């Protein structure tokens, strides 16, 4: 069991907002009996723990309380309620080059920053060569930092803060200022620090990085913890909430952050039986036990408001056999079955294919294809059949499916990111190169000179 390094319990921060400066004076003079301020809750009952060596991500839109949380953890701000405990020394890269003096050289600023952090001089002198080597800014290290580019400043700042051996290291967006090469280097360094037992708290809008590096993520929204758990799920939820029309939606996660409890094996079997008996051979054959189990067992990247939810999904070839491996010339069939929980006037169903680089190669929905929306009735089953013509280039893909609102609100009822895997083999004649095949004709002619 790795030791807990950071423990945050019921942390709440409220700011007093005074409309007029005199308001506070009246409050002070009245001994607090006359209230002249409004309270703004920046953080509301935040709870989490971080274990040693954990890479913990915090995501959320601007104004969601990320910075406030970091400031409290670095002991810059005081919490209004709740408590937190950090075992060991915290170093934070809160703001790029805080404590830097523009007139001093890089080297002098290293020493100066160390003083701000309360380190003794000898220690810093010892670590200095390592810091300078890591910053890799050449002769600039002996120039006043007012001549530095913003990228060089981040390099210097990151080098200093990451080389003073913190127990808990807080990194925020500052990192995104560096160039690609340096950002890579930073993540390598963070990895090193982590293996040395350092606990990392990472705040970023770079969701790919959060997915890639974090072990756990906290999704903050208007000061509330909206999700705590797997980074994939957290970033998915966040993306969904941030998608057009999704901002106002209130996803109602349960206490553990999950939207829906996992169905048990019995429930799955019961569903399949129900399907078979009600729809006979026609649907029953399309959605076998595996098609239901695939959806039921898929809990990691699934979000939605739940007006309808997907119960079964099957990917198969033209012959009706389930498979995930197709050739360049094969037609791909996707069958989707959903259970409608609430009436929805206008809705649509979507399909999306993402390649191994995380790039959406292609996607569509029923409304786009047909120009029509679908009315969902509570208590009914909703069946969708997608037929994909050949066109995807060779490679590995994942399939996302979703049911959503089509009235312009943009609500997603149920979305499963990466529910199925596709592999397109390069066998068969290949008349194109690149990601996808676009129908194309080419005629040539030559004329006498």
């Amino acid at each position, binding site marked *: 069991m790795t030791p807990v390094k950071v423990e945050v319990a019921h942390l709440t921060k409220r700011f007093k907002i005074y409309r007029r400066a005199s308001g506070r004076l009246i409050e002070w003079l009245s001994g607090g009996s006359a209230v002249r301020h409004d309270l703004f809750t920046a953080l509301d009952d935040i709870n989490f723990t971080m274990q040693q060596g954990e890479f913990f991500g915090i995501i959320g839109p601007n104004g969601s309380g990320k910075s406030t949380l970091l400031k409290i953890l670095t002991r*810059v701000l*005081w919490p209004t309620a709740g408590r937190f405990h950090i075992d060991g020394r915290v170093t934070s890269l809160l703001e790029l080059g805080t404590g830097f003096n523009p*007139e001093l050289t890089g080297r002098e600023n290293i020493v100066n920053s160390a*003083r*701000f952090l309360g380190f003794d001089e000898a220690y810093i002198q010892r670590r200095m060569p390592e810091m300078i080597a890591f910053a890799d800014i050449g002769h600039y290290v002996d120039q006043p930092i007012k001549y530095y580019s913003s990228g060089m400043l981040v390099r210097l700042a990151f080098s200093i803060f990451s080389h003073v051996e913190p127990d808990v290291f807080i990194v925020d967006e500052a990192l995104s200022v560096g160039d690609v090469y340096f950002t890579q280097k930073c993540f390598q360094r963070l990895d090193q620090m982590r293996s040395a037992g350092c606990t990392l708290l990472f705040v970023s809008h770079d969701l790919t990085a959060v997915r890639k590096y974090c072990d756990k993520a906290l999704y903050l929204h208007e000061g509330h913890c909206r999700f705590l758990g797997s980074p994939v799920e957290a970033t998915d939820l966040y993306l969904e909430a941030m998608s057009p029309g999704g901002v106002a939606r209130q996803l109602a996660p349960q206490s553990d952050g999950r939207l829906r409890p996992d169905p048990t094996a019995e429930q799955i079997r019961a569903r399949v039986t129900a399907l078979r008996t009600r729809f006979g051979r026609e649907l029953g054959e399309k959605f076998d036990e595996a098609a239901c189990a695939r959806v039921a067992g898929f809990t990691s990247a699934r979000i939605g408001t739940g007006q309808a939810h997907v119960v079964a999904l099957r990917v198969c070839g033209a012959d009706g056999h389930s498979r995930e491996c197709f050739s360049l010339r094969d037609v791909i069939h996707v069958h989707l079955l959903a259970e409608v929980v609430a009436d929805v006037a206008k809705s649509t169903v979507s399909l999306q294919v993402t390649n191994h680089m995380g790039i959406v190669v292609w996607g569509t929905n029923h409304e786009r294809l047909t120009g029509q929306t679908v009315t969902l009735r509570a208590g009914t089953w909703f069946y969708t059949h997608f037929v994909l013509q050949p066109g995807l280039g060779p490679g590995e893909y994942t399939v996302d499916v979703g049911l959503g609102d089509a009235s312009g609100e943009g609500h997603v009822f149920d979305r499963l990111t990466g529910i199925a895997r596709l592999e397109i083999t390069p066998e068969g004649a290949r008349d194109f190169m690149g990601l996808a095949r676009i129908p194309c004709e080419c005629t040539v002619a030559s004329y006498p000179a």
Partner: protein
Amino acid sequence: MVVSLWKYRRLILYNSVGDLRNRYRGSVAGYLWNVFVPLAQIIVFSTIFAALMGWDLPDIRGVKIKSGLSYVVFLCSGLLPWNTFADTLMRGVSSLVGNAGYLKKLPLPEQLFVAQDACSGFLSGLLAVAIFLVFSIAVAGYGPYWEWIQILPGMILLSSFAFGLGLALSCINVFFRDVQPLTQVVVLLWFWLTPVVYMESHFDKPGKEWMLSLLAFNPMYHFVKIFHEGVFMHGWVPAHTWIICGLATAAVNGLAHAVLWRLRADIRDAL
């Protein structure tokens, strides 16, 4: 309050020395301005009061100063420490607001910045007094005296007093920015209520004794007295003056501690 500053002693010292260097950064004469400015002040005083106005003081307790310069010596011995006090106080009051950039990002103790200002005020004040002493010896033919050694504890005490007062006001200034201009006005009034440019013997007349007894409640009167007694009169400052100044310093620092303790949780929210 003081304990938490110990960790940052290097930062305070470095930054306050750096402050002396940086104050005139970009000028041709550089840090020499730290010497020129007080020197020019003394020269201006000498020109106006000694050469033009012909102000002089009657010999007091056998103080022998080159004729014509006794008032200038008296003035400087009190004014330079007063300036140190006023300068430190005014900078201290705006210290937290002025360093909001640091306070909002780094977990540094609030009093650090006020301490830094007090420290740099102390150093530049000490430098000004030292220049004055050189002037006194070389130009006014007065000194040196062993009693002048009292300047050092006097300046330390004075700076500590200014630190405490500055810190308390600085905390309040975060919430009510009126405190800073208000302090400026009060310091001006305070200056004229303290015998710096005039001598306390002005009040030593029938019908004005009440003003003299009122002076006893002005802590700055006692602080200035250290310098008048120690420098101008080159006598040993009476023990009760030291005690009063020490108590006043302890009192304002206690007050500052209480104010900071009370407002701490809200200070950075309001910055």
